[in-house]
Protein backbone atom coordinates (compact mmCIF):
# COMPACT_ATOMS: atom_id res chain seq x y z
CA UNK A 1 0.00 0.00 0.00
CA UNK A 2 1.38 3.43 -0.95
CA UNK A 3 2.45 5.74 1.87
CA UNK A 4 1.07 9.28 2.25
CA UNK A 5 4.38 10.62 0.94
CA UNK A 6 4.21 8.42 -2.17
CA UNK A 7 0.58 9.43 -2.81
CA UNK A 8 1.50 13.12 -2.39
CA UNK A 9 4.34 12.76 -4.89
CA UNK A 10 2.02 11.07 -7.42
CA UNK A 11 -0.49 13.88 -6.87
CA UNK A 12 2.15 16.56 -7.56
CA UNK A 13 3.40 14.68 -10.65
CA UNK A 14 -0.12 14.32 -12.09
CA UNK A 15 -1.09 17.92 -11.30
CA UNK A 16 2.06 19.43 -12.81
CA UNK A 17 1.66 17.32 -15.95
CA UNK A 18 -1.64 19.12 -16.51
CA UNK A 19 -1.40 22.63 -17.87
CA UNK A 20 -1.02 25.85 -15.90
CA UNK A 21 -4.75 26.54 -16.26
CA UNK A 22 -5.56 23.53 -14.08
CA UNK A 23 -2.97 24.59 -11.52
CA UNK A 24 -4.58 28.06 -11.58
CA UNK A 25 -7.93 26.41 -10.80
CA UNK A 26 -6.35 24.70 -7.78
CA UNK A 27 -5.09 28.10 -6.58
CA UNK A 28 -8.65 29.47 -6.72
CA UNK A 29 -9.80 26.85 -4.23
CA UNK A 30 -9.86 28.04 -0.61
CA UNK A 31 -11.86 27.72 2.63
CA UNK A 32 -14.71 29.80 1.18
CA UNK A 33 -14.70 27.63 -1.96
CA UNK A 34 -13.43 24.22 -0.81
CA UNK A 35 -14.88 22.17 -3.68
CA UNK A 36 -14.19 24.65 -6.46
CA UNK A 37 -11.94 22.42 -8.58
CA UNK A 38 -14.23 19.42 -8.29
CA UNK A 39 -17.28 21.55 -9.21
CA UNK A 40 -15.58 23.15 -12.21
CA UNK A 41 -14.20 19.85 -13.49
CA UNK A 42 -17.60 18.17 -13.00
CA UNK A 43 -19.15 20.99 -15.06
CA UNK A 44 -16.53 20.38 -17.74
CA UNK A 45 -17.32 16.64 -17.86
CA UNK A 46 -21.07 17.31 -18.00
CA UNK A 47 -20.85 19.97 -20.72
CA UNK A 48 -18.27 18.04 -22.75
CA UNK A 49 -20.30 14.86 -22.86
CA UNK A 50 -23.39 16.82 -23.90
CA UNK A 51 -21.41 18.64 -26.63
CA UNK A 52 -19.82 15.45 -27.96
CA UNK A 53 -23.25 13.84 -28.15
CA UNK A 54 -24.70 16.91 -29.91
CA UNK A 55 -21.80 16.90 -32.36
CA UNK A 56 -22.30 13.22 -33.19
CA UNK A 57 -26.02 13.82 -33.82
CA UNK A 58 -25.43 16.98 -35.86
CA UNK A 59 -22.91 15.22 -38.11
CA UNK A 60 -25.25 12.32 -38.74
CA UNK A 61 -27.98 14.50 -40.21
CA UNK A 62 -28.97 14.11 -43.86
CA UNK A 63 -28.14 17.78 -44.39
CA UNK A 64 -25.44 18.82 -41.95
CA UNK A 65 -25.83 22.28 -40.42
CA UNK A 66 -22.14 23.23 -40.28
CA UNK A 67 -22.97 26.52 -38.55
CA UNK A 68 -24.55 24.61 -35.66
CA UNK A 69 -21.62 22.16 -35.58
CA UNK A 70 -19.24 25.13 -35.46
CA UNK A 71 -21.19 26.65 -32.55
CA UNK A 72 -20.85 23.42 -30.54
CA UNK A 73 -17.12 23.19 -31.33
CA UNK A 74 -16.60 26.82 -30.33
CA UNK A 75 -18.21 26.12 -26.96
CA UNK A 76 -16.05 23.04 -26.48
CA UNK A 77 -12.94 25.04 -27.38
CA UNK A 78 -13.72 27.66 -24.73
CA UNK A 79 -14.39 25.21 -21.92
CA UNK A 80 -11.46 22.93 -22.73
CA UNK A 81 -9.03 25.86 -22.72
CA UNK A 82 -10.38 27.01 -19.32
CA UNK A 83 -9.59 23.61 -17.81
CA UNK A 84 -6.16 23.33 -19.42
CA UNK A 85 -7.13 20.61 -21.93
CA UNK A 86 -4.89 22.03 -24.66
CA UNK A 87 -4.90 19.03 -26.98
CA UNK A 88 -8.73 19.07 -27.01
CA UNK A 89 -8.65 22.82 -27.64
CA UNK A 90 -6.19 22.44 -30.55
CA UNK A 91 -8.38 19.73 -32.12
CA UNK A 92 -11.31 22.16 -31.86
CA UNK A 93 -9.32 24.73 -33.89
CA UNK A 94 -8.81 22.15 -36.67
CA UNK A 95 -12.45 21.10 -36.40
CA UNK A 96 -13.66 24.69 -36.91
CA UNK A 97 -11.55 24.95 -40.08
CA UNK A 98 -13.27 21.85 -41.47
CA UNK A 99 -16.66 23.33 -40.54
CA UNK A 100 -15.81 26.46 -42.49
CA UNK A 101 -14.88 24.31 -45.50
CA UNK A 102 -18.06 22.24 -44.97
CA UNK A 103 -15.79 19.18 -45.08
CA UNK A 104 -17.84 16.35 -43.52
CA UNK A 105 -15.05 13.74 -43.61
CA UNK A 106 -12.67 16.17 -41.93
CA UNK A 107 -15.27 16.94 -39.26
CA UNK A 108 -15.91 13.26 -38.57
CA UNK A 109 -12.17 12.58 -38.22
CA UNK A 110 -11.86 15.52 -35.81
CA UNK A 111 -14.76 14.29 -33.75
CA UNK A 112 -13.12 10.89 -33.41
CA UNK A 113 -9.82 12.47 -32.33
CA UNK A 114 -11.49 14.88 -29.92
CA UNK A 115 -13.32 11.97 -28.29
CA UNK A 116 -9.98 10.23 -27.82
CA UNK A 117 -8.24 13.33 -26.40
CA UNK A 118 -11.19 14.06 -24.12
CA UNK A 119 -11.02 10.51 -22.70
CA UNK A 120 -7.31 11.00 -21.94
CA UNK A 121 -7.96 14.31 -20.13
CA UNK A 122 -10.90 12.87 -18.24
CA UNK A 123 -8.77 9.94 -17.12
CA UNK A 124 -5.98 12.27 -15.94
CA UNK A 125 -8.36 14.49 -13.99
CA UNK A 126 -10.09 11.52 -12.39
CA UNK A 127 -6.68 10.25 -11.29
CA UNK A 128 -5.94 13.60 -9.61
CA UNK A 129 -9.21 13.43 -7.66
CA UNK A 130 -8.64 9.77 -6.74
CA UNK A 131 -5.19 10.63 -5.37
CA UNK A 132 -6.62 13.55 -3.40
CA UNK A 133 -9.16 11.24 -1.77
CA UNK A 134 -6.51 8.61 -0.95
CA UNK A 135 -4.20 11.23 0.59
CA UNK A 136 -6.99 12.58 2.81
CA UNK A 137 -8.14 9.08 3.80
CA UNK A 138 -4.54 8.25 4.78
CA UNK A 139 -4.49 11.31 7.05
CA UNK A 140 -2.27 13.43 4.83
CA UNK A 141 -2.69 16.95 3.42
CA UNK A 142 -2.98 17.95 -0.21
CA UNK A 143 0.35 19.44 -1.38
CA UNK A 144 0.30 23.00 -2.76
CA UNK A 145 1.43 23.20 -6.36
CA UNK A 146 3.71 26.20 -7.06
Amino acid at each position, binding site marked *: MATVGQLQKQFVDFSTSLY*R*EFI*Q*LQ*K*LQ*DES*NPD*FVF*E*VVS*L*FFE*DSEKLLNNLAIALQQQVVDFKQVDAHV*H*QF*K*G*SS*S*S*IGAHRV*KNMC*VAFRNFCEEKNLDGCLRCLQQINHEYCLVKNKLENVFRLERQILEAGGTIPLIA
Partner: protein
Amino acid sequence: MEEGKRVCALVVDDDRLSQRVHAALLRKYGILETEVVENGKEAVDLFKSGKTFDLVIMDLEMPVMDGSEATRELREMGVTSMIVGVTACEVEAEKAEFMRAGLDACWDKPLSGSAIIAMLDELAKKLL
Protein backbone atom coordinates in the same frame (compact mmCIF):
# COMPACT_ATOMS: atom_id res chain seq x y z
CA MET B 1 -7.76 48.59 -4.91
CA GLU B 2 -8.44 51.72 -2.87
CA GLU B 3 -9.72 50.80 0.61
CA GLY B 4 -13.38 51.62 1.21
CA LYS B 5 -14.30 51.49 -2.47
CA ARG B 6 -16.29 48.37 -3.25
CA VAL B 7 -15.73 47.48 -6.86
CA CYS B 8 -18.59 45.77 -8.70
CA ALA B 9 -17.98 43.54 -11.68
CA LEU B 10 -20.19 41.93 -14.31
CA VAL B 11 -19.20 38.72 -16.10
CA VAL B 12 -20.93 38.29 -19.46
CA ASP B 13 -20.42 34.77 -20.86
CA ASP B 14 -22.63 31.95 -22.12
CA ASP B 15 -20.20 29.24 -20.98
CA ARG B 16 -20.89 28.16 -17.38
CA LEU B 17 -17.31 27.05 -16.84
CA SER B 18 -15.91 30.42 -17.91
CA GLN B 19 -18.53 32.14 -15.70
CA ARG B 20 -17.35 30.17 -12.62
CA VAL B 21 -13.67 30.62 -13.33
CA HIS B 22 -13.83 34.35 -14.07
CA ALA B 23 -16.02 35.05 -11.02
CA ALA B 24 -13.61 33.06 -8.82
CA LEU B 25 -10.59 34.91 -10.27
CA LEU B 26 -12.21 38.28 -9.55
CA ARG B 27 -13.06 37.19 -5.99
CA LYS B 28 -9.49 36.00 -5.41
CA TYR B 29 -8.17 39.46 -6.34
CA GLY B 30 -10.61 41.32 -4.10
CA ILE B 31 -13.70 41.93 -6.24
CA LEU B 32 -16.33 40.60 -3.88
CA GLU B 33 -19.41 41.86 -5.75
CA THR B 34 -19.74 40.06 -9.05
CA GLU B 35 -22.84 39.39 -11.13
CA VAL B 36 -22.98 36.93 -13.99
CA VAL B 37 -25.19 37.01 -17.11
CA GLU B 38 -25.34 34.71 -20.13
CA ASN B 39 -25.35 37.05 -23.11
CA GLY B 40 -24.92 40.62 -24.27
CA LYS B 41 -28.65 41.44 -24.15
CA GLU B 42 -28.86 40.52 -20.46
CA ALA B 43 -25.88 42.80 -19.80
CA VAL B 44 -27.48 45.71 -21.69
CA ASP B 45 -30.80 45.13 -19.87
CA LEU B 46 -29.02 45.24 -16.49
CA PHE B 47 -27.50 48.64 -17.29
CA LYS B 48 -30.86 49.87 -18.65
CA SER B 49 -32.47 48.87 -15.35
CA GLY B 50 -30.16 51.33 -13.59
CA LYS B 51 -27.46 48.97 -12.33
CA THR B 52 -23.86 50.06 -12.62
CA PHE B 53 -20.62 48.12 -12.67
CA ASP B 54 -17.04 49.34 -12.51
CA LEU B 55 -15.75 46.43 -14.59
CA VAL B 56 -17.42 44.31 -17.28
CA ILE B 57 -15.76 41.13 -18.53
CA MET B 58 -17.36 40.54 -21.90
CA ASP B 59 -17.11 37.35 -23.94
CA LEU B 60 -17.23 37.77 -27.73
CA GLU B 61 -19.22 34.86 -29.13
CA MET B 62 -22.57 34.51 -27.37
CA PRO B 63 -26.12 33.71 -28.52
CA VAL B 64 -28.91 36.37 -28.59
CA MET B 65 -26.44 39.31 -28.58
CA ASP B 66 -22.69 38.93 -28.95
CA GLY B 67 -19.98 40.86 -27.15
CA SER B 68 -19.33 43.34 -29.97
CA GLU B 69 -22.97 44.36 -30.30
CA ALA B 70 -23.43 44.57 -26.53
CA THR B 71 -20.30 46.72 -26.12
CA ARG B 72 -21.41 49.05 -28.92
CA GLU B 73 -24.84 49.44 -27.35
CA LEU B 74 -23.45 50.09 -23.88
CA ARG B 75 -21.12 52.82 -25.21
CA GLU B 76 -24.00 54.38 -27.18
CA MET B 77 -25.99 54.45 -23.92
CA GLY B 78 -23.13 56.46 -22.37
CA VAL B 79 -21.77 53.64 -20.20
CA THR B 80 -18.20 54.51 -19.15
CA SER B 81 -17.47 51.34 -17.16
CA MET B 82 -14.25 49.55 -17.98
CA ILE B 83 -15.23 46.88 -20.51
CA VAL B 84 -12.66 44.15 -21.09
CA GLY B 85 -13.22 41.65 -23.88
CA VAL B 86 -12.23 38.01 -23.52
CA THR B 87 -12.21 35.58 -26.38
CA ALA B 88 -10.96 32.17 -27.44
CA CYS B 89 -11.17 33.42 -31.04
CA GLU B 90 -7.79 33.34 -32.82
CA VAL B 91 -8.68 35.51 -35.82
CA GLU B 92 -6.89 38.86 -35.30
CA ALA B 93 -9.37 40.71 -37.54
CA GLU B 94 -12.26 39.61 -35.30
CA LYS B 95 -10.40 40.70 -32.15
CA ALA B 96 -9.66 44.08 -33.76
CA GLU B 97 -13.35 44.44 -34.66
CA PHE B 98 -14.23 43.62 -31.03
CA MET B 99 -11.84 46.34 -29.79
CA ARG B 100 -13.39 48.86 -32.20
CA ALA B 101 -16.81 48.20 -30.62
CA GLY B 102 -15.54 50.17 -27.61
CA LEU B 103 -13.49 47.87 -25.40
CA ASP B 104 -10.81 49.18 -23.06
CA ALA B 105 -8.77 46.00 -23.61
CA CYS B 106 -9.10 42.52 -25.06
CA TRP B 107 -7.56 39.38 -23.56
CA ASP B 108 -7.30 35.80 -24.70
CA LYS B 109 -9.33 33.18 -22.88
CA PRO B 110 -8.76 31.79 -20.36
CA LEU B 111 -7.94 34.79 -18.17
CA SER B 112 -4.97 34.40 -15.89
CA GLY B 113 -4.17 35.94 -12.53
CA SER B 114 -1.70 38.35 -14.17
CA ALA B 115 -4.42 39.50 -16.62
CA ILE B 116 -6.77 40.25 -13.70
CA ILE B 117 -4.00 42.17 -11.88
CA ALA B 118 -3.30 44.24 -15.02
CA MET B 119 -7.03 44.98 -15.40
CA LEU B 120 -7.42 46.01 -11.77
CA ASP B 121 -4.34 48.26 -11.96
CA GLU B 122 -5.93 50.07 -14.93
CA LEU B 123 -9.27 50.23 -13.11
CA ALA B 124 -7.63 51.67 -10.01
CA LYS B 125 -6.10 54.50 -12.13
CA LYS B 126 -9.48 55.12 -13.75
CA LEU B 127 -11.30 55.31 -10.40
CA LEU B 128 -8.82 57.76 -8.81
